């Protein structure tokens, strides 16, 4: 039986959810918050959905999507193009390679994984910037940036879990 147009549209939209939700957080990450001293330690917001989807739906959140999200981040934040593409790609790969361990393990294990990925992401960001400008970048904000990203995981990651549930939800009438 061929799926109807509506069903195909529905399926397409559902598979776009991981990418779109990540894009939303990439955009939110560059919105100015006008808070004092917040700038340097602002969290790498897009890293949370990238991590979540790399673990749970790597078929929908692909390498190329992580790359593209990084590119959008760089373009908007004024960073050299490619820096966050590289950072997100490597973080994605790290999460992807551990997905068998992380998937379905419960929230706290996932949260612990986020800490490691955030530390990796922030460290990589520092390294890439330092190499790009050929001088050592300040290290003071790094720990806070990683911790803040991790601290936001219950909020953003929790939202991702809800979105994931909604994505899998099927009305009773469609199941036959």
């Amino acid at each position, binding site marked *: 039986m061929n799926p109807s147009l509506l069903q195909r549209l529905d399926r397409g939209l559902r598979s776009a959810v991981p990418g779109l939700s990540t894009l939303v957080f990439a*955009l*939110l*990450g*560059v*919105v*100015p*918050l*006008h*808070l*004092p*001293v*917040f*700038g*340097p*330690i*602002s969290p*790498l917001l897009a890293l949370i959905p990238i991590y979540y989807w790399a673990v749970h739906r790597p078929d929908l959140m*692909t*390498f*190329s999507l992580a*790359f593209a999200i*990084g*590119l*959008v981040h*760089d*373009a*908007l*934040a*004024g*960073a*050299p*193009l*490619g*820096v966050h*593409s*590289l950072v997100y*790609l*490597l973080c994605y*790969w790290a999460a992807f390679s551990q997905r068998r361990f992380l998937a379905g393990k419960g929230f706290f294990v996932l949260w612990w994984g986020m800490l490691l990925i955030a530390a990796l992401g922030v460290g990589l*960001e*520092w390294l*890439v*910037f330092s190499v*790009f*400008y050929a001088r050592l*970048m*300040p290290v*003071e*904000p*790094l720990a806070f*940036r990683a911790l803040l990203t991790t601290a936001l995981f219950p909020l953003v990651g929790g939202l991702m879990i809800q979105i994931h549930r909604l994505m899998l939800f099927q009305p009773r009438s469609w199941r036959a």
Partner: protein
Amino acid sequence: MKARTRSTVRLIALKSWAHRFSFALLLLAAVGLMMLTKIDTLVVEDVRARVTDAVSPVLNAVSRPAATVATVVEDVRQLSDLRAENARLEAENRALLQYQEIAFRLEAENLSLRALTNYRPDYRHRFLTARVIADGAGAFVRSLALNVGTADGIESGQAVLGGNGLAGRVVQAGERTARVLLITDFNARIPVLLERSRDRAMLVGDNTDRPHLTYLGEEASIAVGDRVVTSGHGGMFPPGLPVGTVVGLDDGLIRVQPFEHLDRLEFVRVVGFETVDETASMQRGLGGLSFEAMGAVGVEQAPDPAVIEALTRFISFGGTPAAAP
């Protein structure tokens, strides 16, 4: 059946290989892009401008509630010390009124001296008010995106002011958005002048909150608290824009504290400058300035007419200084 299993296994192996290959390819692409950014900034800036232009409606919409929340937080914080703040402002206002008298007198004197020396006409600043719709969001990039672009007359190189002083420079203008490099960014270099001693220097950003001065002459006289203003050398900026104050030595570097709170900029003014006739007086300039700023396209809300009226009254109240000779 067996053949089918074998082909499935082969397919899986192929898929996994393709997966790894795409990862390596994308890694290379990212590194390549960075190298391109380093070599050919024109192409990259064009791409950046297009992306920023494309998502600017979204950013514009999202930045408003974010700004509102920040304002509310700030308001609540200020409620606690309203009385003290009011007393401080009243004292400051009294002092400023005195300064205004002095400024009017000096301006009149200045105009007459200029007439005597046949001084070349001064520059007039033309302002365009813009909203900040994105910021660098990180420790390694100090830049902003504005909601105005070439369509509004923005050009690369124009100075950007906050409410208190210089914030940065437009480094790239898209059609509807512009990118500003803040004076604290690693790549920022601003020719400046120490206001007291008139010594020239270069203000260099290093991704900390306080940029430092270099190329200061051997015999330069410098003291903590000296005001630093743009020198106008290089023709990039109008001269005399306030930048910051010297706060002291740190690791052998002379640090400058910017006047502007660069981490909470919500609106900025982009400065275009042009020459005008020398009869432009400060009083008339002030009135003209507010109306020009009102006509700017970046912000939909015009200032409250009552404020304009009060300002005009305030200016005329300031006394009639000696007419220009």
